[in-house]
C-alpha cells in the first residue's frame, strides 16, 4: 500500500488534532511569555521544536519516498506566491508580537484556561472578515504565483533532498549549541 491513504474523516482529524494539541501544550506553547520570548531572543524553544519537527518529518517523508512507500505527487506541497507568502508570514509574526500567539498556540492557550487565547481567536475571525473585504483590491498581486507549482528547496537549489535536510539539521545543531545556556521561561 502506498501513502497517502485518503483517511479524511472525523476520526483521522480528531486523532491528529489531539496529538498536535497535546504536544503543543506539553512543549509550553500555550504560554505567551515563552513563545514571544523567541521573538525577543530570550527563549529558543520555538525554534528548537519547529526545526526538530521539520527535520524529523522531512527525513520520514523523503525516506518513505526513497523506499517507494509514499507517492509525493499526491502530497500537498504549497506553491510560492512571493508577496502573499512573505507578507502573510509577516502579518502572523506581527500578530504574535502583539497578541502573544499564532493561531494554533491560541487554541491550546484557550484549552489551558486562558481567556486571552479565546479573544485572540475572535480577533482571527475579525482579521478573516477584513481579508474578505480587502480581497478584491489585493488579490491580483498577493496571489500572483512565483515559479513552478509546489516548488521545493531541493528543486530550487538543484540539490538532493538529503543535502537540504542535512543543512537544516546542521542549522538546528548550531542554534542549539549557541543557545545551550539555560534560558528563563
Amino acid at each position, binding site marked *: 500500500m502506498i501513502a497517502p491513504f485518503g483517511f*479524511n474523516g472525523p476520526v483521522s*482529524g480528531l486523532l491528529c488534532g489531539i*496529538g498536535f494539541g497535546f504536544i503543543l501544550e506539553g512543549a509550553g506553547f500555550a504560554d505567551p511569555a515563552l513563545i514571544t520570548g523567541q521573538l525577543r531572543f530570550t527563549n529558543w524553544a520555538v525554534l528548537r521544536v519547529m526545526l526538530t519537527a521539520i527535520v524529523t518529518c522531512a527525513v520520514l517523508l523523503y525516506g518513505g519516498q526513497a523506499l517507494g512507500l509514499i507517492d509525493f505527487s499526491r502530497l500537498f506541497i504549497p506553491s510560492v506566491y512571493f508577496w502573499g507568502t512573505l507578507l502573510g508570514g509577516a502579518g502572523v509574526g506581527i500578530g504574535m*508580537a502583539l497578541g502573544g500567539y499564532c493561531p494554533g498556540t491560541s487554541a491550546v492557550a484557550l484549552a489551558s484556561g486562558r481567556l486571552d487565547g479565546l*479573544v485572540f481567536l475572535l480577533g482571527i*475571525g475579525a482579521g478573516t472578515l477584513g481579508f474578505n473585504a480587502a480581497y478584491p483590491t489585493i488579490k491580483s498581486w498577493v496571489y500572483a504565483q512565483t515559479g513552478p507549482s509546489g516548488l521545493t528547496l531541493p528543486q530550487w537549489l538543484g540539490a538532493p533532498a538529503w543535502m537540504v535536510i542535512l543543512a537544516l539539521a546542521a542549522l538546528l545543531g548550531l542554534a542549539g549549541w549557541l543557545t545551550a545556556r539555560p534560558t528563563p521561561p
Partner: protein
Amino acid sequence: MANPRPRWNSYLAGVALGVVLFAAFLATGHGLGVTGATTGVTAVAANAIRPGLFAPGSYLAGYVRFGLNHWIEWEVLGVLIGGVAGSALGRRFAPRIDGPPRLAVWLKLPLAFIGGAASGFGARMAMGCTSGMGLSGSAPLAAAGFLFLIGFFVAGALAALPLTPLWRRR
C-alpha cells in the same frame, strides 16, 4: 493549578511533533493546520448572523458553501481536546487572563484581539498560518514554508522590539 509539572524537553517535543505531522501526511496527504478551520467557522457564523453577507464570488462565499464537516474542523476540535488533556495532566490548567505581565489587565484583551486580527489577515494572505504553512509547508521542504517563516520571524522580532519592556517579569 498547584505544582505544575515541568514542560517537555524541546527536542523530544519536536521529534513527537514531527512524527504526528508525518502521520497526518500519511493519512491525508497534507499536514496539520488551524486557520482553514477558523476561516470556515468565521464564514459560516457570519453568514448565519447575516444571511447573504458574502456576495457570490467573494473570498468567504466559497467557505460558506464548503461548510464545516471537514477533516480540518475535526482536527482543530482535536487540538482543543489535546490541549485540555495536556494541561490537565500536566497540572497546568488554570482559568486566567495571560499576556504581557506589565500591561494593565483591561488592556490585555484588546491587545490580544488586535494581534489575532493581524494574524487572521496574514494567514489568509499566506494561505496558511505557522502550522499550516510554516510547519506543514516546510516539512516536505516547500520553498513557500521557509519563505513564510522568514517573514514571520523578521517581522515578529521587529514588532516585538518596542513591546519588550512590557514582558519583563514582575
